[in-house]
């Protein structure tokens, strides 16, 4: 009996030690769950107040593309501008009701929600109801083991108060601001609060075939404390892509209620 008590006691102590060690090994991370909206000067020149606001990241640098991909990118931008000038815009994925994919969805064109749970951080972007999952403390897969998609495969871990995520497996046609990439694109994110209300996401794209060096852009989000993301279903999409890739619209009541 005395032995049994001693054994139980030892087990309790060792459990307590193990628990304490585990708690020490994974320090408490901030639960920044909630709804947010894009914060800062997204278009145009920042105002003096925005320049003074240290929770607004500085302007992002242009993509450091290698000469070949740079020419392709610039030609594409010129074609988009010319098509817009002529009133015949080139159809994008949006015309077919397709979501942004990664990492564009993290630009939060519409409000974005983070759900921080023990084994997963889930990100939902309101437009097109885009959802991605960052699996915590799971091994990364090789690019060839991930089927290409819009959101890819993401794993993450906590580095103190920062969520560190890595993503591979993005379809080549899913571009961030029209910047080309290969199937080997690797997206690294560092997500952390810079104030109780503002979350930053430092997004680094690595793709040595097309980029001279890793390209980091920073996106800020501000809390929307009383906002619940709305549904978004592409219910009556009157725009369409014609045979020449130009955006057109069906004119007239489609009969949708």
């Amino acid at each position, binding site marked *: 009996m005395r032995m049994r008590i001693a054994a139980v006691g030892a087990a309790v102590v060792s459990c307590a030690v193990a628990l304490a060690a585990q708690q020490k090994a994974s320090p408490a991370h901030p639960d920044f769950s909630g709804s947010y909206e894009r914060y800062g000067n997204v278009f145009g020149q920042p105002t003096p107040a925005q320049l003074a606001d240290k929770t607004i990241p500085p302007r992002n640098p242009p993509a450091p593309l290698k000469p070949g991909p740079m020419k392709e990118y610039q030609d594409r931008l010129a074609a988009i501008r010319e098509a817009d000038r002529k009133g015949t815009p080139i159809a*994008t994925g949006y015309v077919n009701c397709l979501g942004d994919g990664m990492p564009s969805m993290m630009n939060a064109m519409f409000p974005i929600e983070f759900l921080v749970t023990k084994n997963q951080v889930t990100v939902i972007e309101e437009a097109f109801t885009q959802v991605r999952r960052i699996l915590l403390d799971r091994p990364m897969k090789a690019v060839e083991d991930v089927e290409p998609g819009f959101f890819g495969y993401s794993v993450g871990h906590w580095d103190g108060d920062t969520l560190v995520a890595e993503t591979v497996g993005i379809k080549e046609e899913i571009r961030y601001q029209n910047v080309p990439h290969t199937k080997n694109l690797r997206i690294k994110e560092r997500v952390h609060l810079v104030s109780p209300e503002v979350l930053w996401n430092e997004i680094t794209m690595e793709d040595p075939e097309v980029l001279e060096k890793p390209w980091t852009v920073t996106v800020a989000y501000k809390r929307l404390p009383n906002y619940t993301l709305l549904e*978004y279903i592409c219910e009556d999409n009157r725009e369409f892509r014609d045979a020449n890739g130009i955006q057109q619209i069906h004119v007239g009541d489609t009969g949708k209620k």
Partner: protein
Amino acid sequence: MKIALAMLCVAASAVPAFAHHSFAMYDHTRTVTLKGEVTKFQWTNPHGYLEIDVKQRDGSTKHYSLEMTSINMMTRLGWRSNMIKAGDLVTATVSPLLNGEPAGLLLDVTLPDGRKLEPGVPAIQTFKRTPPEEQ
């Protein structure tokens, strides 16, 4: 309703206006003012639509489909799906479709009670307005 109207006014300056697709197919150099009877206020994504019948000088009726923005954006600006009903007589400021078909982008709409609502068209300042008397 007063609260909703106040929301529209307050929110309009705060909500960032994003476009999911290009509005380049609409004429940015002029607007037309359409007075007509609503046949439907369609509350759908990716965009809402206002369908109106406009009486022509010869007595006939011409139907126009007016594109709005995402109903999510409109909701954040204070819009609700019941703000306009079939049968309402409205005045719409419209950027017409460049190809001449009877459709346009709705920049603002004045309701029978005089309220003027905007669906939050992105970069609305790039649409040059034509005074009604010059149309």
